[in-house]
Structures are given as structure tokens and as C-alpha cells.
């Protein structure tokens, strides 16, 4: 009897070893392509930094924003990044709390996207400020009546919760890494030691960990809803046509879930491909994420119909100029491309299983993410270019907005920063949770702790 038990133990141990070896593969191999990739990202971020220094010197006039179009690409990027960051709560919290197990390998991917997107969003909003040297004014002189103050409070709160949600499930994995990463440089080993909090895998520790995770997951769902609702109130609290809408909150949240799911698909495809994680991120995962994407896209389509058909029906003065501009005027090309290629066609295609295979789904998700960025731009700038009173006594360029190279490089830099942070994270921590995956496969805590 003992022999059989020991044999079972041995098999479990070997299984666990395999999981560990595969999932720590990215941390142990740095290919030359990776170095090229990091170099490329650093060059993009470097260019962005140079452009920002130039902007600090000359003022925000280096952008194409002027008195009429006073918010442009930076603000669109901010809204887009806040939208992407909602995915953390979707995958980690909502799916996990509903005991949906297939999402387990994707939780850390979505959390790291969420955290890095939030950090980049905070950076880009500071770039959009006219006086970034006075950032501290918000904390000392802040007015609780202002939607911007609400946004800052909610974003920081959500960031802290997301960091905790990233860190807590990481603790058992770090404890494991402590034992396995003896060949890594000293600073890295010390980092693992400090962050592992002396994790032993005891029942008590697991109890505390699981309860804390539950608290965070329950907390993050309303926080995620409020972060994008409050961001939408930056527009809905004004009187402008196109923004003066009562459903902006749910409209933005629905869009956020859609673009978040799409960005997870894009990221998981590249991670799977690069590190050969086919066993952990299976075709079935793509299938399920595809179904999730269809669901969220349908909800977003519903809100889009409400947002555009209702004002178009009435053609109220003020609203009419903006709607006309979007549907048939200056912005019609971008609008219809975004709606059709970025939402409607993806929905139609993803209904079929064929298009929920990894490669087609990747292409569709890329279209959705790019479409989402331009959708945010269509929300921000056309409204500003259709004010209530006529635009007179300004230079001709004030009647339209075409972003300068300076703005574009800084926005590209913000995306590159996210890619950089995620790439570095993959090299330092397992991107697919080891202990949770082992738990799913039925490996006991004893084996994990004693390996």
C-alpha cells in the first residue's frame, strides 16, 4: 500500500516539475529577439520622452490642440487606456467569483495589462496637463465637487486594488521561485525573498490568502464599474452636444469590457506563441474568450445604437451638427470604419466557431482594439469642434484637428511603455499562475510545498 502511495506521489511530483519547468521557461531563456524587442520599445519610449521635453519647453502648442479642439489625442488615449484596464476586474474577479475555471491561466495576464494600462493612463494624463509642475495642487487644493477629483480617487484606488490582486496570487509562486531560481542574480533572489513574505503554504496562510482574494475580488467589481463611469462623467457632466447623455456610464463600461477582452486575446496569443504554452493556453481558451468577446460586443452594440440612433432621430439643434459630422460629414469615414470593422463584422464573424480559432481571433481582436482607440477619439474631439456658438475670428486651422507628430509619438510611447512593462514582468515572474494551475490539475498542496 505504501508503495502505491509513494508511486502516486512520485507521479504527482513529476507532473508538478513539468508544470514548473514549462511555466518558468520564459524566465530562464532570453532570446536575441527579446533583446531586439526591448530595444525597439525603448527607442519608441525614448522618442516620446524627447517630444515631451520639447512640449514642456514650448507649451502645449506643439500639439494641434487649440481653443476649440481643446482635448485631443492625449485625452482619447487616456480614456482608451482606462477602458483597457477594466479587463483585470472582468477576468480575475467576475469569472473567478463565478467559479469559471478555464480563465485561471489568463488571470495574471489580465491583471498585468490592467496595472500597466492604468500606470500609462496616469502618465498620459499628466502629459495632457498645461502645468504638470502643479500636479500636487490636486491633492492639496482638490475640490470634491469636480469629476476630475473623483476620477483621480477612483483610479488610484483601482490601481492599488489591482496591484494587490496581482501580488497576492503571486506570493505562492514567488515562494516557489525562491527555491528554483538559485541561478539568478543576487538582486533578483533578494527580491523574491522579500516578496514571498515567508510563504510556507500552510493551511493558515492559504486561509488568509483566499479570504483576502475574495475580499479584493468582491471590491474590485464595483470599483471597475465606477472607474469607467466616473471617466465617462468627465464628458457627461458638461452641456456639450454628443456628451450631454444620460447613458454615458454604461456605454463606456460596456465598451471597456469589450476592448479589455480583445487586448487579453492579443496578449495571450503572443505569449502562447513565443513561449510554447499551447498546453496551458489551449484552443479552447481562445474559443471561450471569443464567446466572451461576442457577448461584450453585443452589449456594446446595443449601447451604440442607443447613443447614435436616438439623437439622429430628433436632430436637435446643437446635437444635429455633431451627429451629421459623425454619420455623413467630416468624420463619417472614420466612424463607419470603426463601427463596421471594429464592432459589427467582428460580431458576425465570431458567432462562427471557425473564427474563434487562435489566428482568426487574433486578427479580429487587433481590429477591435484599434477600432476602440479611434472610437474614443470620435467621442472626444468632434464634439469640441461643434460648439454651440459659431467659430469665428480664429485662424483657419482652428476648425479642425489633425494631431502633430509630437502627439502621435507620445501616444505610441504610452502603448510601448505598457508592452515594455509586460515584457519585463514575464521575465521576472511566471505569467501563468503556477500554483493555481497545479491545483486545477489536482496536485496537492503538499507536493507543491515540498518541491
Amino acid at each position, binding site marked *: 500500500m505504501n508503495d502505491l502511495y509513494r508511486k502516486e506521489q512520485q507521479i504527482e511530483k513529476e507532473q508538478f516539475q513539468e508544470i514548473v519547468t514549462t511555466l518558468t521557461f520564459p524566465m530562464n531563456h532570453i532570446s536575441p529577439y527579446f533583446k531586439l524587442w526591448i530595444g525597439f520599445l525603448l527607442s519608441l519610449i525614448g522618442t516620446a520622452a524627447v517630444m515631451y521635453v520639447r512640449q514642456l519647453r514650448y507649451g502645449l502648442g506643439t500639439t494641434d490642440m487649440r481653443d476649440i479642439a481643446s482635448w485631443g489625442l492625449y485625452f482619447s488615449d487616456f480614456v482608451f487606456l482606462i477602458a483597457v484596464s477594466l479587463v483585470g476586474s472582468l477576468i480575475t474577479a467576475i469569472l473567478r467569483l463565478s467559479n469559471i475555471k478555464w480563465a485561471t491561466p489568463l488571470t495574471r495576464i489580465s491583471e498585468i495589462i490592467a496595472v500597466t494600462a492604468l500606470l500609462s493612463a496616469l502618465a498620459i494624463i499628466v502629459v495632457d496637463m498645461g502645468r504638470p509642475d502643479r500636479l500636487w495642487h490636486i491633492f492639496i*487644493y*482638490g*475640490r*470634491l*465637487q469636480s469629476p476630475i477629483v*473623483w476620477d483621480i*480617487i477612483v483610479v488610484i*484606488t483601482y490601481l*492599488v*486594488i489591482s496591484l*494587490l490582486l496581482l501580488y*497576492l496570487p503571486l*506570493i505562492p509562486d514567488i515562494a516557489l521561485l525562491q527555491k528554483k531560481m538559485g541561478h539568478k542574480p543576487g538582486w533578483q533572489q533578494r527580491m523574491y525573498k522579500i516578496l514571498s*513574505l*515567508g*510563504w*510556507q503554504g*500552510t493551511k*493558515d*496562510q492559504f486561509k*488568509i*490568502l483566499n*479570504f*483576502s482574494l475574495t*475580499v*479584493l475580488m468582491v*471590491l474590485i467589481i464595483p*470599483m471597475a464599474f465606477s472607474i469607467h463611469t466616473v471617466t465617462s462623467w468627465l464628458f457627461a457632466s458638461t452641456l456639450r452636444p454628443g456628451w450631454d447623455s444620460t447613458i454615458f456610464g454604461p456605454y463606456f463600461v460596456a465598451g471597456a469590457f469589450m476592448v479589455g477582452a480583445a487586448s487579453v486575446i492579443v496578449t495571450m496569443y503572443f505569449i502562447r506563441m513565443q513561449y510554447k504554452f499551447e498546453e496551458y493556453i489551449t484552443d479552447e481558451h481562445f474559443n471561450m474568450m471569443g464567446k466572451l468577446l461576442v457577448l461584450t460586443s453585443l452589449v456594446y452594440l446595443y449601447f451604440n445604437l442607443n447613443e447614435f440612433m436616438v439623437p439622429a432621430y430628433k436632430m436637435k439643434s446643437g446635437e444635429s451638427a455633431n451627429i451629421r459630422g459623425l454619420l455623413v460629414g467630416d468624420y463619417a469615414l472614420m466612424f463607419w470604419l470603426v463601427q463596421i470593422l471594429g464592432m459589427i463584422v467582428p460580431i458576425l464573424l465570431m458567432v462562427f466557431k471557425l473564427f474563434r480559432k487562435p489566428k482568426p481571433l487574433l486578427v479580429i481582436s487587433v481590429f477591435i482594439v484599434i477600432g476602440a482607440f479611434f472610437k474614443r477619439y470620435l467621442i472626444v474631439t468632434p464634439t469640441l469642434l461643434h460648439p454651440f456658438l459659431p467659430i469665428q475670428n480664429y485662424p483657419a486651422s482652428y476648425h479642425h484637428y489633425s494631431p502633430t507628430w509630437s502627439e502621435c509619438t507620445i501616444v505610441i510611447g504610452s502603448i510601448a511603455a505598457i508592452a515594455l512593462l509586460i515584457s519585463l514582468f514575464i521575465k521576472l515572474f511566471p505569467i501563468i499562475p503556477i500554483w493555481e494551475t497545479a491545483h486545477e490539475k489536482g496536485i496537492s498542496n503538499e507536493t507543491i510545498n515540498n518541491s
Partner: protein
Amino acid sequence: MKQLIIPDMGKFIILVSIILLAGCLNTFSQLIAWQVPAEMVNKINPLSIEPKNVAMGRNIFSRSCVACHGAKADGQGLIKSASLIAKEFQKQADGTIFYKITTGRDKMPPFKATLKDDEIWAVINYLRVLINPSAIPPAKNVKLEISTGDEIKSVTAFVYSADSAKLPLQEVDVHFYVKRDFGLMSIGELSNYTGTDGKVKVIFPDNIIGDAEGYVSLLVKVENDFLYNNAESEVIRQWGEPMIMEDKYFNQRSLWGSRNKSPVWLLLLANGIIAAVWGAIFYVAYNLFRIKKAGKIFTK
């Protein structure tokens, strides 16, 4: 048939001269005579130059013409305009000037609708006097006394000569004003002439707002009268309606108030949510310490 051959040089000269001519015409268009119909030129000014109507003319001029033509009528107003004391202008007949004022041209608005004929003739008389001040005899000094009646709120002005004789003066134009924040609001008529007793009375109108207790400052003036030098007198009475400063909207808590005036419901809601959420966050952070402690107990 011989064709008229204009050499290229010739064409060029013709073109240049046309352009120059057009330029000259454009420049001189400002100086092109303003055509006045003959019957209007010969219209006669019914008012002879007398202090009373010259004074009226001066009043009207300061209200309606100074902005463009300047206080000295020399064309140096808030915008540049014609000088009304220049020889070329003064050479015109009264009728011509009358026509120009009533009809207007370009930047000069027509005054046909805003001024009565008599008033326009008075302004013309004033313009004549401006270059010929000897037409009017030197002004005398006067004294002005105010008395007020309280059953019916009224102000009476008594004008008399400033010398020892203290003669009451009649037909003196007196102006009555209430002092306001940025100017003087006139009460009574535009011109209030003293009677044979040297007095003229004006009733104080209702609905004039005073300060917080209803005090108003009344100013009575003899001004712009050619026969008499300026004189004024002031009196304060509690005849106005007390000023109601409805600034309760400012002192209340509101969404547009400053940071210490935010609405109570917002304070409770926002701080409540922040406290609850961050309480949970701190609890989780505390749990991190508990995890560490639990691990230590195990190793010991």
C-alpha cells in the same frame, strides 16, 4: 483698313494709368463732396443763437456726438471722424449741415429718428459758437440751494446770483441726479427751468434703490449753461428702497462652491465610499503581515 496697333509698351502704360487712376479715385472718394439737394441747402435755421438753445445743443452734442467727433469737436473721438470746427466744415450753410446730420453717410448714422428738428438746429448753433465764443456773453456765478419736501418726496432747487444782491434767476436749466455706482441717473426732465422765483421742483420717483438702509445721494447741478457758471449741491435722504443683497445663493453649499462649500450629501457619499473601500484595502494589506507571521510560526 489700317488696324490700330498698340505696341506692348503702350498697353502697359495704359494699364498702369488705369490702376493709378482707380487708386486716386478711391483715395479721393472720401473727400468727394457729399451732395446735398439744393432746397435743403437753403433751409433756414429757425433758432437764433441764444444761450438757452446753445446750451441745449451742447448737452445733445455731449451725449450723441462726442464719442466720434471728440469733446472738442475736432474729429479726435474714439474713432477718427470729420473735424466740425475746421474751416471747410463751418463754411457750409446751416441747411447743409442739417441735411447731413439727419441723413447720415457711411459711419455717420442718421439722426432723423433719434433727434427732433429743434434739437438738431440747436446742435448746429452750438457748433457755430464753438469757433466764435464771443457770440455769447461771459457767464456769471450763481449759487444753488436745495430744499426737500418729505410728505411727497420732492427736491426744490433755488438759483440766485452769487453777488451781494442775491437775485433769484429765472430760466436757468437745472439738472437733478441720483448718484449711482458708475454714473448719475437723471430724475425729472432733461431740462428743468427755474421760474420767476428762481425755483424749480422735481418729484423724487418711486422704485429707486438706495443703500442697505435706503439712503440715496441726490446731486443737483447747473451745468453747461452759457450764461451761468457751473454750480452744484448735494443732499442725502433716506428715500430709496433698501438694497436687498440676495447673496444667499453665494453662501450656501453648492456644486459650484469652493472646496469648503461642497454639498453635504456629496461629502457623506464620497467620504463614505472612500472610507469603506480603503478600509477593506488596509485590511488586505494587514493580512499580508498576517501571512508573513503565520509563515514564521511554522518555521520556528
